[in-house]
């Protein structure tokens, strides 16, 4: 069925695909590439789900990378899978045979004829409603296609990712109101009983259906964009940073959620590694008394030296975090990190500050729920002294006055902040003193290293007294910090 020419085209397509994955940051090795090429030989190419599974299994070895893979896959194979084999599932879609047409021609074809062409907007909305209520996927897909032609207002040649087209289409379809309409309709039909619990379940189900519709529309838009501008250009436009490279300062809500989930394993790893180190190094210093005692059974020759059991090192951690406006989104992350730490380590104390400072250990200990804890910190912690602009000097001074005696040789102090001090006094001596007493002092700065010491940033004033300053803008860097701390233990 496949000729040599086609095989070559497919091979090129796959290599382009792998190339794009690498460009997006996925570490695809040579062996993995070869495995993928071997794998696709066994998979019928028109079976998109299996093809995706095969490529995913051979090329993507981190679950966090799956989303990036999925986007690239959609871009590449929405396009290539069609020309290769007939009988593709897209066959009955009105625009599937539009291969090779330009975007305008495609639009014209859609607007002129087609099953949906003659309907007015209200009829289309009604059809959509019916399709959603009965969950008729085939119908939904056709409606999605018609809606994109009608409402997206796509202009050929524009280097966009399609988010705006999606927004326009959804707004015209009144996507926001659809769920409540569906709920209403189901209630009128007596399909769902009264009560918060039933409504919640029904609402979730309808939201899931709407999500499917959104994905269909998104796929449709993407396919047309790919047809218009070509695969490579489209993939480049859609390229997003990998989850571990997402900047804490500019993370979207969705990315933040992902970060939150990723932080737990990281702190657990930290805790686990610390415990492991403790167990593995089971040799302390020579126990002279025991060794001599043992030597008696060998006639006084110390054949079997005995060692002391090492004292288990119980790390005590103090976290001091800036939660002022300039690091607002970083602060959200910081608090999550602190919360995760406190659930893994038994002895963590935490403070937050702006120009005043307040201990928040209790907030995290009392609440089982991170959202609640963060809310408490934000509303109840007393962190404003004068005007609510960061004043590291004053905050550190207050901390020093109250708590410096509690810092011991077991304590690791971690300070999080951008060290933008609004030209106040540094009071760096407080940190110097903390370093003298503590096991180690670390500083995590959410700004790129290039911005350090520019403007009112005075990080190097404090860095003099820290055992390490780390740029900490994304998960990858946080991971580096965690490993650095572990290795130095």
């Amino acid at each position, binding site marked *: 069925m496949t000729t040599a020419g086609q095989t070559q085209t497919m091979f090129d397509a796959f290599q382009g695909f792998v190339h794009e994955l690498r460009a997006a940051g996925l*570490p695809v*090795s040579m*062996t*993995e590439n070869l*495995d993928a090429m*071997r*794998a696709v030989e*066994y*998979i*019928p190419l028109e*079976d998109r*789900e*299996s093809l*995706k*599974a*095969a490529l*995913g*299994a*051979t090329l*993507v*070895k981190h*679950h966090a990378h*799956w989303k990036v893979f999925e986007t690239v896959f959609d871009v590449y194979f929405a396009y290539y899978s069609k020309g290769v084999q007939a009988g593709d599932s897209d066959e009955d879609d009105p625009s599937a045979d539009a291969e090779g047409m330009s975007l305008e021609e495609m639009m014209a074809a859609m607007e002129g004829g087609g099953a949906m062409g003659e309907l007015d907007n209200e009829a289309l909305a009604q059809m959509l409603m019916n399709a959603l209520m009965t969950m008729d996927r085939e119908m939904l897909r056709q409606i999605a296609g018609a809606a994109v032609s009608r409402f997206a207002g796509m202009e050929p040649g524009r280097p966009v990712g399609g988010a705006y087209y999606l927004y326009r289409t959804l707004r015209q379809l009144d996507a926001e109101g659809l769920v409540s309409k569906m709920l209403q309709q189901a209630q009128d039909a007596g399909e769902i009983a009264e*009560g*918060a*619990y039933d409504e*919640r*379940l029904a609402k*979730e*189900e309808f939201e*899931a259906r709407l999500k499917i519709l959104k994905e269909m529309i998104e796929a449709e838009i993407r396919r047309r964009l790919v047809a218009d501008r070509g695969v490579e250009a489209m993939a480049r436009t859609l390229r997003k940073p990998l989850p571990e490279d997402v900047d804490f300062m500019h993370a979207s809500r969705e990315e933040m959620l992902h970060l939150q989930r990723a932080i737990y*394993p990281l702190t*657990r*790893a930290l805790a*686990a590694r610390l415990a*492991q180190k403790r167990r593995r190094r089971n040799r302390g210093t020579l126990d002279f008394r025991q060794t001599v005692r043992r030597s008696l059974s060998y006639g006084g020759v110390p054949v079997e030296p005995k060692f002391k059991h090492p004292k288990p090192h119980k790390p005590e951690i103090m976290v001091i975090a800036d939660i002022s406006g300039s690091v607002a989104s970083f602060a959200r992350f910081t608090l999550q990190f602190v919360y995760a730490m406190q*659930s893994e380590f*038994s002895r963590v104390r935490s403070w937050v500050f702006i120009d005043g400072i307040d201990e928040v250990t209790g907030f995290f*200990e009392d609440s*089982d*729920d*991170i*959202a609640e804890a963060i809310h408490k910190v934000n509303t109840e912690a007393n962190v404003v002294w004068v005007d609510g602009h960061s004043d590291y000097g004053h905050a550190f001074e207050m901390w020093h006055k109250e708590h410096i005696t509690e810092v011991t040789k077991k304590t690791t102090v971690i300070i999080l902040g951008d060290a933008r001090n609004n030209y106040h006094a540094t009071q760096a001596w407080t940190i110097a003193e903390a370093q003298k007493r503590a096991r180690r002092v670390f500083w995590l700065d959410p700004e790129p290293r290039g911005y350090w010491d520019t403007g009112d940033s005075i990080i190097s004033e404090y860095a003099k007294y820290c055992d390490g300053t780390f740029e900490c803008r994304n998960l990858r860097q946080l991971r580096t910090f965690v490993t650095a701390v572990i290795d130095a233990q």
Partner: protein
Amino acid sequence: MADRFDSVPQVIERLRSVDYLSDASIAGVVFLADKLGKPILVEGPAGVGKTELAKAVASITNSRLIRLQCYEGLDEAKALYEWNYKKQLLRIQVDRDQDRDWETVEGDIFSEEFLLARPLLEAIRSEEPVVLLIDEVDRIEIETEALLLEVLSDFQVSIPELGTITSANPVRPIVILTSNNTRELSEALKRRCLYLHVDYPTLEREEEIVRVRVPEIDATLATQIAKVVASIRTMDIKKAPSISETIDWARTLIYLGRNEIDPETIGETLHVLLKYQGDIQKARKELGVDGPTSPLRGTASR
């Protein structure tokens, strides 16, 4: 290499025949593992049927399941092989009177007869078809992972005294590793494996799983169960209910003789699904159900 499967749909079909409901990605990876002769690394949250998959694959291929449970501190002697030291000593004792030179004795006591095969070696030497399950591989230390590499890539074990032992089996065993993702596995290990991430199932799949595993259940009840569980999983809780907990819940409801789920029933039986008091309270609040006021389990907060 003998092929066990013809196509992905066939794998799905055969897995279903042993009550394991897979999907295109799970079955696809199993299919490829057989074709390419590569191990499968299955990752995902606890209780989504990772270990079950290995058992199901063993059962549909009529293979023996050899299991290596990983734990911290696992070493060569427990995973690969060990010399039967007592038997060796005995042999030397017996030989003592006869005048034999060292080489002969050494050749004698370091032979297969004195070798204690541990799971990995056992899988390699097995004559019958084998599925090797290396369970919870994330529990061993990163240094110990290296032990597995030779087995995973070439399916052989090198024993210094004996040489390299390769598989005599015409059917290459299917190797399945599972990980709960408590730590990153090394790149070297991942590169040798096909990667499969198993997540909580979709609504439809979970409903089917419940119906297959608890055959006496009513269809509407199964739907309701799947919906409630899916709803609980969207909440921000410490430990989301796993598939096995869903099945336990379904069985509990059957046992209690409920044919329908109402808010009271949920309130009373939520502790089957959720194991933290905080989670239970949260789920109750969000679902708008009441429950017994006395906590059934101690609080999990530390």
